[in-house]
């Protein structure tokens, strides 16, 4: 972890990690909206998802994907992948929650249990990081 520098402000890799996650979340929700609107299972190329490009929402989602990608590259420069990647999966909790709130998809008891496990796992991965940051 010695290559995590105590960069401040916008250049802080942890802030960039949060930004990257936020952009991924927005892009996923836009992609689902856009992909559903353009779904055509009868097309021979439907398995590639290329038809989704007909939706402006998909293009907007791609912009968010690019933004998340750029901040993610910055994150990778400073934080080990085996720490940054598990933490970035907080998005896997946020996506079902937002689907529930915004897209009206349902969350079963088992899914809630899974969300709970992810949150505990995130806390376990983040704990040594928090200690390290305190020392900086």
């Amino acid at each position: 972890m010695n290559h995590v520098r105590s960069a401040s402000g916008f250049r802080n890799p942890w802030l960039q990690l949060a930004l990257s996650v936020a952009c991924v979340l927005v892009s996923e929700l836009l992609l689902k909206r856009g992909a559903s609107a353009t779904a055509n299972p009868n097309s021979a190329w439907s398995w590639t998802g290329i038809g989704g490009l007909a939706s402006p929402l998909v293009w907007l989602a791609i912009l968010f994907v690019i933004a998340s990608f750029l901040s993610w590259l910055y994150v990778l420069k400073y934080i080990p992948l085996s720490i940054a990647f598990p933490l970035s999966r907080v998005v896997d909790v946020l996506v079902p929650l937002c689907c529930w709130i915004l897209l009206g998809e349902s969350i079963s008891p088992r899914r809630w249990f899974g969300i709970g496990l992810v949150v505990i796992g995130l806390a376990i991965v983040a704990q040594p990081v928090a200690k390290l940051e305190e020392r900086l």
Partner: protein
Amino acid sequence: MTWISFVLIFISLIAFVIGQLLLKKGMELTSNAVPSRRHIALFIGGGIVAMTISFFLTLGLLQRFDLSYLYPFQGLSVILIAITAALTLREKLTLQLTIGALLISAGIVLVSLS
């Protein structure tokens, strides 16, 4: 869900893991005292190709399944990436990190099975 959907999800997952490893390696190279632009471009470019394949496969799958059902399959990537990063990039995989990654993966799989 048909077997072909599972195959597509699997290919998308493996392409995603390979992509992340290539990107990380490429960004590590930028910290070298004398960075080789050709090597960096090769790793970042390879990473982008792998991520693009994964992206379009996911987009196609999204046209058939709910996002909250389909997307969490990517959760398996957490433990896969933690292990492969330790093996190929020589990152330290502590017991605490392994347990955390396993819980996150298990949680995401549970979410995806619902």
